[in-house]
């Protein structure tokens, strides 16, 4: 079947950021997102959650340019002060139109 190559931006961040990030992703052009709750550890340790180490994992499948924009946005606004990582994975989706 014909599948479309797209980018999936994955963000792992402090739970307190969830609603703000979701709004910003929409503004930057994402048509949707999937979230799971998790936990983890990185180079920075503390963050402002009652339960140390808990985080949210936000996935959004978007066209290349939107992925670009999102990565630039989060690098600029979240890397300095927050427990935050972001990475991009190549995915192939059915129904490419759904994501633009």
């Amino acid at each position, binding site marked *: 079947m014909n599948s479309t190559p797209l980018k999936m931006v994955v963000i792992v961040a402090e739970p307190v950021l969830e609603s703000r990030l979701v709004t910003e992703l929409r503004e930057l052009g994402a048509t949707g997102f999937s979230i799971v709750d998790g936990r983890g550890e990185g180079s920075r340790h*503390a963050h*402002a959650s*009652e339960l140390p180490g808990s985080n949210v994992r936000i996935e959004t499948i978007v066209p290349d340019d939107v992925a670009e924009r999102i990565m630039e946005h989060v690098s600029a606004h979240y890397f300095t002060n*927050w427990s935050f990582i972001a990475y991009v994975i190549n995915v192939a989706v059915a129904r490419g139109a759904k994501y633009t």
Partner: protein
Amino acid sequence: MNEILRVNLLSPIALAFVLGVITRVIRSEFTLPKEIYQGLSIYLLWSLGLHGGVELAHATFTEIARPAGVTLLIGCITPISAYLTLRYIGRFGEADSAGIAAHYGSVSAVTFIAASTFVKGMGAEPEGFMPTLLTLLESPGIHIALAIGAIRSGAKSRPTSELLHEVLTGRTMILLVGGLIVGFLIGDKNWKVIEPFYDTKGAIFRGALCIFMLEMGILAGSRLGDLKKVGPFLLAFGMIMPLIHGALGTWLGSLSGLSVGGATMLGSMAASASYIAAPPAVRMTLPDANPTYYLTLALAITFPFNVLVGIPIYFKLAQMAHGVG
């Protein structure tokens, strides 16, 4: 005094908390499921609100007016006193000073509950409208401290409307204020039916509180490692600031006409540091304030200090202010 301290340290909630800390000290992986912990805190806050609302219906405006006034006054003084201490004595940065101050300007509901359990155990029945005062003290301190921080650190402060909404619609406010209103409206007949389940002096409430305190101890214990990170000044701050705020609250409470029990509770509220409402608000508004500082202070230093030794001290002070004991 020693006797009072002993009684308090041997109370189920104090011991459950200590057990929780030990659990972490011996590196046990045991912990309450997050959802159970949240469920318990919802039940405790909701009970507090409901029961408080029922009692509020029996109070007259004049009884409450002056205590409410001093409570708001405390909500304005404590964040500033904490901020100034940190900024000019502790030489901390704007963000950290304001961030920590926001916690001490607000209140810890669990400390409130521990205090009410303690004074009732001491036979010093507090006023029924204390939960109402709790809700009054919850948010002003946070806003004042964050306003200071935003202005002075010149941080492109986020819309305060957003912050206001965030704090006022948080779990604690919904359950406390909501519970107060519902409790106020249902009337005694309805209350009687559900009282055994929600009675804040009852076995279910106190039993649930023990399990909650066990987890509180685990949470505090898992921050013990951060104690060295915060350094000697904050360590001392975490115990001396509560004493000062506690004495102030107890004294103002007594002046405003509160009983020994009520004054003790107001003192405990003033002395306590919020660790539910304040942290996320501070995190979002002053992201460059170090969370390790305020969370360790609120959870691992001030909370245990108040629950284990602070509350009995404020009780003693209240007795003195009333010229009794």
